[in-house]
């Protein structure tokens, strides 16, 4: 069952939601893109439906709404420290199915890995609700159908934009915001069913593949900029960073900032030891995590097929082509 509303009607619903929630979603920033005259689609606060950009893939995912690129953990003054005052407002985040599936991966890591719950993540996460909007078309480099993350469940609402109309599937708790409209259409959420790119994640991967010359090509091409990690909706690595304020060295803070397994320094230890010095080894480390290691631990592949790593790579390295190539290597070696 669904509500079918016009844009104006849904805007009315959004204004009701704004009484209780901040609305966050992809917004278009004119001429802020990486090329001249190109726009940037990025996450930001939205006031009405016209702010929400559903035509085009955001450069960064919705990850930053619950796992910010830089997050203050403590403020320090001399020997005293305190946690930031942190009372996040309830939020609704608009995102695509791939990014919503990515949130499940973040949950596994931050809430369930190890015996401790990540308090900073949890505080934002439990205030956040997700409105997933279906993709009208597949974008460049997308391969979500291959990773099974084109579909999703467990959302707070699902939206299909259909020209003048929007098909809306709110969960029970959100139906009250639709009061006055009839939920009478016997239709189902529609997910994208085809991408231009298909990949077949190889079975039977193991550490035997680690030494394969397959990875050498990436050693030559990858420049270790880390864009693939930072744009990835499922990358969760971070580094602790203490700073003091320039104007007052007695005061400062401890932050955590996003980290990249492709960038120098990721494994550096006091005393000078480090691991995976070659970019090819780092690519292997990342790829294996996305399509093998994570699943061994959490029973689902990490990669959600959004293709953003391909979108942003300055060396035109393609993750999906890497996986497809790996399939061939595994088939040949077995």
């Amino acid at each position, binding site marked *: 069952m669904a509500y079918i509303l016009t844009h104006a009607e849904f805007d009315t619903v959004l204004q009701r939601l704004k009484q209780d929630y901040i609305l966050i979603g992809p917004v278009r920033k004119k001429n802020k893109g990486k090329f001249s005259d190109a726009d940037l689609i990025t996450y930001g606060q939205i006031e009405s439906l016209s702010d929400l950009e559903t035509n085009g893939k955001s450069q960064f995912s919705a990850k930053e709404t619950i796992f910010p690129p830089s997050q203050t953990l403590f403020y320090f003054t001399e020997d005293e420290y305190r946690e930031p005052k942190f009372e996040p407002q309830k939020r609704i985040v608009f995102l695509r199915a791939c990014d919503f599936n990515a949130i499940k991966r973040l949950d596994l890591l931050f809430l369930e*890995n190890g015996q401790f719950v990540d308090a900073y993540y949890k505080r934002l996460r439990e205030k956040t609700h997700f409105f997933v909007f279906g993709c009208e078309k597949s974008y460049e480099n997308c391969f979500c159908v291959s990773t099974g993350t084109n579909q999703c469940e467990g959302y707070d609402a699902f939206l299909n934009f259909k020209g003048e109309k929007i098909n809306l599937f709110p969960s029970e708790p959100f139906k009250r915001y639709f009061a006055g409209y009839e939920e009478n259409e016997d239709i189902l959420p529609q997910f994208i069913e085809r991408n231009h790119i298909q990949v077949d994640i190889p079975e039977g991967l193991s550490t035997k593949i680690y030494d394969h010359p397959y990875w050498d090509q990436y050693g030559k091409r990858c420049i270790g900029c880390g864009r693939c990690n930072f744009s990835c909706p499922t990358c969760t690595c971070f580094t602790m960073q203490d700073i003091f304020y320039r104007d007052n060295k007695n005061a400062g803070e401890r932050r955590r900032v996003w980290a990249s397994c492709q960038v120098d320094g990721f494994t550096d230890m006091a005393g000078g030891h480090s691991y995976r010095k070659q970019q090819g080894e780092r690519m292997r480390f990342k790829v294996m995590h996305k399509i093998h290691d994570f699943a061994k631990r959490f029973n689902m592949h990490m990669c959600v097929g959004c293709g953003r790593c391909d979108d942003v790579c300055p060396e035109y390295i393609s993750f999906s082509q890497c996986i497809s190539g790996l399939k061939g290597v595994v088939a040949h070696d077995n």
Partner: protein
Amino acid sequence: MITNPYLPQPAEIISITKETTTDYTFRLKTDIQPDFGQFVEVSIPKVGEAPISVSNAQPGWIELTIRRVGHLTNELHELKPGDLLFIRGPYGKGFPKEQYRDKSLIIAAGGTGLAPVRNLINYYYQHPGEVRQLSLLMGFKTPEDILFKEDIEKWRSKFQVLLTVDKESPGWSGHVGLITNFVKDAVGENSSASRVIIVGPPLMMKFTSQEFIKYNIPEENIWLSFERKMCCGIGKCGHCRINDTYVCLEGPVFPYITAKNLLD
């Protein structure tokens, strides 16, 4: 209210022992009671945080042996007794002590690798009946790099101690050569029943393990302790991950049969 696992606790420095010119041991007042081989996250606010293994512990205090090698450790070495450090933990899985009970145990430690096993050795020094026999094989770069000299002299009274340096200097009359050269001596007769702990730099652990296996120590009788950049210590930050294993959670102590498949 959620407990914040990143919250450090202030710990007063009780005393500082200068082991070498670059390695200081800090005794900290704390209620933390670590298992043998566990680590803590140590920080100086506004400077940084790092994982450090516990090199000794008794109720009321722990000791951390810290080499001056970087930004944070440089600052640490400026601290004085009475100053505060910040710690959280303990983290990780330590040595499975029950598996060494009534066995012959060999501990091979290279350089600062002695720190994570020192507490265990001290424990056996206090409870010598708990293992059948303990042999210590310790290697340092030069005589000037030897850590815990007083402890080592003390340990000689109860255990077989083999101390070697890679490069001798004037006045040194002990063994010279890599640890791997002395594995045969440490193993002795009836080796296959012995349990072995190896801690040190990655290459040292690799080649020392191979040497013990060569002298008939079964792989399942060997344990290693890994050093990695553990930013969080609680399985979140990702820096210490190898394959599907988080060193901070499943390690830092691993059975060799697990460790040999952990390929960075």
